[in-house]
């Protein structure tokens, strides 16, 4: 549990990032999730990503809804502020938080129940507003915390642990995100850290809303035969459309890096993404094509993974709201109050 104290003595041999911090400094409370739960692997990948990007822990804001997945913020970055909100409503809390302080790195963590059922309205509108945050859906096709009901991402025909067949259509968060105007859409798998860490780093570096759907098997309720969100099914049916590398600002890209077709996307916040295509059909910068592609793969029962769509340079919420450099929360009162004189002038016209 999060309040259990852990020794914070840093091991001298641990690698240090630019801030002189070790991976330990990005850890959080002890997980209370089931042993083997995909969500914990994502936490691990996330710790690695923020460590490698040298984000100061206390300059991150961790937000979530309710669910096993939404407990994740308690399990990393103990020295970040966390906000475990109500079920499905983390996007709105993030919106308000981001609006008044654009200088923090916001990381939202949600589940497929949290984001696609009760929270789908807020999810869609947060993407539409393009607030600057990394938004993860730890997607297991079920409601873990309430013991295994199908979620809206459960595929048609997949079965519950006790055999019940899901007849409903699935909502694919990636398709929905692209259709809702999200500028960074990716899919990862909790079991594939090599793919996931660069996606997380790219998402963290993207300016605007970066949505990553991470397939994250629920070992307790949805890892059986018949599940399409199990470790096995995902391993067998994941269809990576390409490799993503995140290139820090100072690193120059050498031509030989690229195997296959490579595409470089300059990130607004510095650094860039190097996309190396595996599927030559695919163009991650073409919204219409991405929509068609995903819908086709989905039709075939395949799970396209990787960076599915990216569009850099769209104005984020901050820019659209024409906010200045200083966060609203930090503006001195003197710049906010028009004063008694202005009040008197104003009232001249009210007589």
């Amino acid at each position: 549990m999060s309040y259990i104290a852990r020794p914070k003595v840093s091991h001298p041999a641990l690698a240090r990032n630019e801030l002189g911090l070790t991976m330990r400094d990005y850890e959080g409370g002890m997980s209370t999730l089931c042993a083997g739960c995909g969500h914990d692997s994502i936490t691990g990948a996330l710790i690695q990503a923020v460590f490698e990007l040298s984000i100061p822990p206390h300059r991150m804001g961790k937000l979530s809804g309710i669910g096993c997945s939404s407990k994740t913020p308690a399990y990393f970055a103990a020295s970040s502020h966390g906000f475990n909100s109500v079920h499905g409503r983390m996007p709105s809390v993030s919106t308000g938080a981001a609006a008044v302080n654009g200088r923090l790195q916001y990381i939202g963590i949600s589940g497929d129940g949290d984001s696609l059922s009760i929270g789908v309205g807020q999810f869609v509108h947060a993407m539409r507003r393009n607030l600057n945050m990394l938004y993860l859906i730890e997607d297991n096709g079920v409601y873990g915390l309430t013991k295994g009901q199908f979620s809206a991402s459960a595929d048609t025909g997949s079965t519950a642990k006790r055999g019940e067949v899901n007849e409903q259509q699935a909502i694919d968060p990636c398709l929905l995100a692209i259709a809702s105007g999200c500028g960074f859409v990716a899919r990862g798998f909790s079991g594939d850290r090599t793919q996931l860490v660069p996606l997380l780093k790219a998402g963290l570096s993207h300016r605007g809303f970066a949505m990553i759907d991470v397939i994250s098997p629920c070992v307790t309720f949805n890892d059986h035969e018949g599940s399409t969100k199990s470790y096995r099914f995902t391993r067998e049916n994941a269809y990576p459309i390409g490799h993503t590398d995140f290139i820090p600002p100072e690193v120059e890209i050498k031509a030989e890096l690229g195997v296959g077709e490579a595409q470089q996307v300059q990130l607004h916040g510095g650094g860039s993404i190097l996309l190396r295509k595996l599927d030559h059909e695919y163009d991650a910068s073409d919204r219409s094509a991405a929509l068609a592609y995903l819908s086709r793969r989905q039709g075939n029962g395949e799970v396209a993974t990787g960076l599915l769509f990216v569009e850099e340079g769209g104005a984020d919420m901050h820019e659209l709201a024409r906010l200045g450099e200083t966060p609203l929360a930090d503006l001195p009162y003197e710049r906010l109050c028009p004063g008694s004189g202005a009040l008197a002038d104003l009232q001249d016209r009210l007589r």
Partner: protein
Amino acid sequence: MPADNDFTIRIANVNGTGSASANSLLMKTLFRMGIPVAGKNYFPSNIQGLPTWYEVRASHRGYLARSGSVDIAVAMNAETYQRDLRELTSGGYLLYDSTWPRREVLRREDVHILGVPLARMCNENFDNARARILMKNIAYVGVLAALLELDLDIIRELLRQTFARKKPLLEANQIAIGLGYDYAREHLHCPLPFTARSMDGPGSQIIIDGNTAAALGCVYAGATFGAWYPITPSTSLMDAFRSFCSRFRTAEDETRNYCVIQAEDELAAIGMVLGAGWNGARAFTPTSGPGISLMSEFLGYGYYAEIPAVLFDVQRVGPSTGMPTRTQQGDILSCAYASHGDTRHVLLFPSTPRECFEMAATAFDLAERLQTPVIVLSDLDLGMNDWMSEELTWDDEYRPDRGKVLRAEQLEDMEAFYRYLDVDGDGVPYRTLPGEHPTGAFFTRGSGHNMHGGYTENAGEYQEVLDRLRRKWDHAATIVPRPEIRTAPGAQAGMITLGTGHSACREALDTLAGRGVALDYMKINAFPFGAEVETFLKDHKRIYVVEQNRDAQLRTLLINEAGGRAEQLVEVLHYNGMPIPATSIVSAVEADMLRDRAA
């Protein structure tokens, strides 16, 4: 009985025919003549084509409540002729557009029917179709000017100010006033037995609606973030906030020192406000009843996780969608206890635009001092109608009271920080802001937590925090605005109200005093109530509780939370959507006293 500077005019019109500027011209003219006035707009929940009324009451005694009677009806809507005629006081005057004479329909022996061919005159004098419609409205102001001896110079000056940048319109308006005025002087008995006479009533007062005043309060309190979902009658609050901010809060480089987000719904609006409040900004959301219902879950979160937030509930008629364009005080109970579990919220009850302004600022201070959502309960009557109000004043020495926030410097020197400790014994813990300092980090959650901020499912640890919240509540009762109490010599009973009950009560108290009934009076300004409210309840055997809802919600709270006794508290209720008039209070009190004497 109408008298000089003591009469009510009600103008019946059709929604969407542009009568607003004529009505405000009429009201402003009386106001500039130094006569206390109140303007009330009764409009339908649609955009065009349905009946709408505007009521102007002139009252030399300064009574601003609805008078409950109509002395002059300006009947511009043929569809409501019958009703407008019926609701006129005996001896009153009905003015109508006699372009189409209606001798059949407009028949009532005890009133005066005045016909003026408004449409015909306008058709003859204006070419443009839109002008022909609009100028009929201005023309009836001209007619009223003649009947009531309104000051024509003031009217013309007001028009000049209004249309300073629209010369052609100015000219048309001036002509229209003349058309009405001249026709009346020529064809009607002018002046009426009662007229408007210049006096010096309003002094330095202004005319403003409560929503505009509340918005100004948010600006002056230093609110930087607002999120809302449009809903009548609260929408104009955010409109005003935006327009003040674009004027006062836009930097030279065009960046904005404020942010307003139109949320996708009310659940999102309150979520945004909590996010912003958690992050250290003063944030608010205006809404109305349905919005409060939708915000319930998050309100409980704000209470339990202790996040400052300010809400304005501009109440309309419920239950459900009800009558969105009518007024009521029906959300008192649901706001006080919004959300499941043991939750309770601090409420403020402004009764005038000036209080809207001041209490908005107070609300932000309280929300931050108490670290909890504070709901300012206004209503449609206060929020959207034009009220004559004390001038707004601002103390430039004011600085926001951010309450107990530990900043980086302080955290730097601390070993550890625990979010929910009752360090000072007042039930209010210390908080920190995200991004400030690693030592300040804590985890905000709506699930069970202990006083250190850690997750808990332990019975004792859980209860400890709940008990402290209750102590914080008791502390709140000592710092919220105190009631306004006026005692009357020899009073045996009392009267209590809140919000817009105030103007009607003041008038009713005068009337009752005139009839030999003296009552002590308390206007409640906040919930939790505090010691003075309890004392007032203790000190009076019989108290009339005046409020605008069916279920006596204020009375309920007084019984629950301030030791009021059911036998002692007499319900005086009004809940048909119209603002409560003083007369209904007077008759309720008199009826009760009669009953009491009989018993």
